[in-house]
């Protein structure tokens, strides 16, 4: 994965950069908005990671300008502001995802992979999803594993659908809350874990190989890991 990091804070850039390189990503870094714009226009990247506050051209303006210039590369916005409506503003200006500092590297990597996969996956509309011996029929909204129909509640279905769409990738709790429940918030307890364990009861309990794994400190992964 080839990443452009536009971040003015050297300490943060160095830290993120080192972690991304360790995770096997290609990295180019710019320390101001104007340089970031020029680099993004001239080179091709899989994902841009843009800080909200930048000298020169600020992060949101940079994204808006790039979108107006016809660039469609997925963007993840980083923000240290911790301000309430940052996320909304960020998404309005054309960002694809948003992460408030500080974040765990696992959260960042998980989100970058999702963005990258979304951009590279075929745009044709799938009618079914498959992970190992489990198949989800998106039209009839049915899940069958090893020939056995698995009855699911609507929310469990949505949860499984999201996990299946991101099979093999680490999905964080925040991502699940955001995409399955539609709210971006910070639960005080691991309320998500209870939902996951219920889902696990249905899809894994009666089968030899468990599909839904917990990745400690990060989140969950359905199916075998990609790496």
């Amino acid at each position, binding site marked *: 994965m080839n990443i452009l990091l536009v971040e003015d804070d050297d*300490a*943060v850039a160095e*830290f993120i950069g080192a*972690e991304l390189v*360790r995770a096997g990503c290609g990295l180019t870094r710019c320390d101001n908005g104007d340089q970031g714009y020029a680099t993004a226009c001239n080179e091709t990247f899989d994902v841009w990671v843009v800080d909200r506050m930048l000298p020169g051209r600020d992060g949101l303006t940079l994204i808006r300008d790039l979108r107006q210039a016809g660039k469609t590369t997925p963007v993840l916005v980083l923000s240290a*502001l*911790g*301000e*309430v*409506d940052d*996320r*909304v503003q960020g998404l309005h200006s054309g960002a694809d995802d948003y992460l*408030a*500092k*500080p*974040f*765990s*590297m*696992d959260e960042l990597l998980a989100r970058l992979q999702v963005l990258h996969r979304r951009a590279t996956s075929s745009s044709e509309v799938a009618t079914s999803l498959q992970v190992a011996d489990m198949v989800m029929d998106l039209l009839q909204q049915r899940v069958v594993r090893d020939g056995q129909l698995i009855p699911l509640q609507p*929310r469990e279905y949505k949860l499984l659908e999201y996990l299946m769409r991101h099979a093999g990738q680490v999905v964080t709790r925040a991502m699940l809350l955001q995409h399955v*429940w*539609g*709210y*971006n*918030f*910070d*639960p*005080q*307890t691991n*309320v998500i874990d*209870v*939902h996951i364990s*219920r889902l696990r009861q249905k899809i894994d309990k009666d089968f030899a190989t468990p599909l839904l794994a917990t990745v*400690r*400190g990060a989140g969950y992964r359905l199916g075998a890991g990609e790496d």
Partner: protein
Amino acid sequence: MQAHKVISSLTFRYIARYLLVLSATVFLVVVGMYSIYSYNYFSELSQSIVDEEETLQLIYDGQGLPGVRQYVEDQGKISIADHFYYLVTDVEGTKLAGDLPQASAYREFDGGWLGFELALLEWGESVDVEFLAREVALGEDYRVVVARSFEQAVAQGRLVLHTLVRTMLVTIVLGLVGGYFAAARSLQRFEWLGREMSRIVRGDPSQRIDADAEKGQVRELAGVINRMLDQIEALMHGVRSVSDNIAHDLRTPLARLRNQLSQLAHDLSEQDANRVEDLIADCDALLASFNAVLRISALEAGSRFSGETEVDLGQLLRDVVELYEPLAQEKSIDLQLATLPSAHCLGEADLLFQLFANVLDNAIKYTPASGLVSVSLERNSARAGHRIVIADSGPGISAEHWKDVFRRFYRVEPSRSALPGHGLGLSMAQAIAHYHGGTVDLEDNQPGLRVLIELA
């Protein structure tokens, strides 16, 4: 206004004390003057008796006993109220002349002076009258008692005393009534000040006492209090920004530590990795606390929500309850929801979700197994808004802690060690409610806790 409060007020006590001192002073002055008057009166009275005895002596020297008898009879016929009374006896005590009875119950004083009471007919009625008298020898064979009533002085004294007592009573009563109203008025002003202050302390510390309509000391006092509030607010702000700075500055090194631990865990054996994972979980909890503190500060420092997005509160509550339903089921808690078909308010859905989730999370956490948690949405017509009540059947929180639990990191004692949590949930809930122009209040659910969330 309650009377006992006025009476025990400082102003009233001061006025009462002043009245007491004033009355005592007046009383002492009058008693002093009365003593002087009495002394002079009795001096004159006794002098007149001595003079009269000298007259009798002269008469006796010139005319003997018959002259004295004649004189005494003549004097008895004078019809003035205040005349002398006489008793002439021989040495054995046998009455020879005079209008006093022979054997009166005398009280003897120094210098041959006597005092007695005698019933006299006055206006046809028998009245006990006080007399001052003196007995002297008349030649060698006779004795004479000359008495004069001092009833007049006693009556005058009584009149003066009565007048004085009545005047003083009226003064005291009027003074107390006036003092009561003066004290009530000043108490009213001070109670107003007190109410204003507690309103500010309880509610929004950035408010000030509006004392433009006040005069004098109350206005001065209000000014001083306002300046004090300015300082308190500045200090509070300072403390908060210090804690914010700490949280902010520690986040980056902590995140780095966490990520390095995470890298370390990859390279370790499974057993060691598990121990590192526990450290990572601790880091995550710390980071979550720091993030929550900074979010609360951002909410409190920022301006109120001014967006146009409308939130369907019913749907939002259904989503929150649905998210927490499995958690409740795990503890066999009956989670009930009562919503309204269309209840919209302006706000940010993510934040309101966070608010309800925090409160519901607490409710489920503190309710024992097989308990009851209910979420209900009502229209609050008085405030033209909505009220969300989240009630549980847990141990509740005693009223003395109701204010404290909204403070950052405050946790009621038993749960501090027993249950996980960073003590920021209700602070965050309140910050979000305030951000939306609403409030969060606590009530006793008997048993359990009721959390009342008012939204515009």
